[in-house]
């Protein structure tokens, strides 16, 4: 597996039919990157995705079997929540959690591994879905409408052949 050498770049891949993976190097010691993922004081300060979202709810009970819950809110009031449990907690190198967006969504197993590379930290996050179908469906979220419009447009061009 190729590890990106540059800071500021995330390497996204699909290591198997049921997984998606992100690898990124941070210019910080491993203990601090660990704290960023486990201390609620830090989590809500960065794990908020695209601009405009905040994380008003961030509850974590960081121990094997402990529960966690995140809720995000967009300025116009849109909300998104997910929760789960801590499956494995090995500070500062490995954090395994279960995650579910809601009853209609499949549960995923998320593994965050942190390794040291000099003074930097290599983060590998792997999300495992129960099936390929579940993974593909989750990856499609939020994209369907825009893509279908694009396909329809392209289809019209191709249909002219």
């Amino acid at each position: 597996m190729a590890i990106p050498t540059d800071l500021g770049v995330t390497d996204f891949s699909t290591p198997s039919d049921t997984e998606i993976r992100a690898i990124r190097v941070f210019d910080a010691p491993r203990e601090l990157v660990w704290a960023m993922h486990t201390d609620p004081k830090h989590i809500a300060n960065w794990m908020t995705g695209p601009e405009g979202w905040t994380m008003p709810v961030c509850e974590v009970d960081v121990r094997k079997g402990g529960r966690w819950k995140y809720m995000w809110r967009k300025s116009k009031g849109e909300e998104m929540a997910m929760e789960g449990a801590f499956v494995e907690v090995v500070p500062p190198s490995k954090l395994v959690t279960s995650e579910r967006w809601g009853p209609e969504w499949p549960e995923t197993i998320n593994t965050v591994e942190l390794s040291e590379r000099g003074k930097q930290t290599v983060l590998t996050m792997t999300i495992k879905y129960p099936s390929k179908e579940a993974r593909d469906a989750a990856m499609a979220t939020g994209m369907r409408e825009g893509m279908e419009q694009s396909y329809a447009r392209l289809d019209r061009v191709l249909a002219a052949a």
Partner: protein
Amino acid sequence: MKDLAAPFEMSGPAVSKHLRVLERAGLIARGKEAQWRPRTLQAEPLKQVAEWTGEFKKFWDASYERLDRYLETVQQEQDSPEPETLEAQGDGYSD
């Protein structure tokens, strides 16, 4: 061919070349009729690529970028005499 080329400002041969690339990539399929060979869009592989650059990537790219800046700020704070100022700033960890 002529129909396909019509919407673009490029020559017939240039369009043919693009079509061959798209075919090799499995993104379009060619019909069998000798004189009239309609192309149909094979959306699935294209869709997977597009979706991969979708929400998941968007979320983590944005979050990790923010984490880069936040880590920098936190490490600077650790070196300074007043480590509590970060919290008072709220989201003031941007550049």
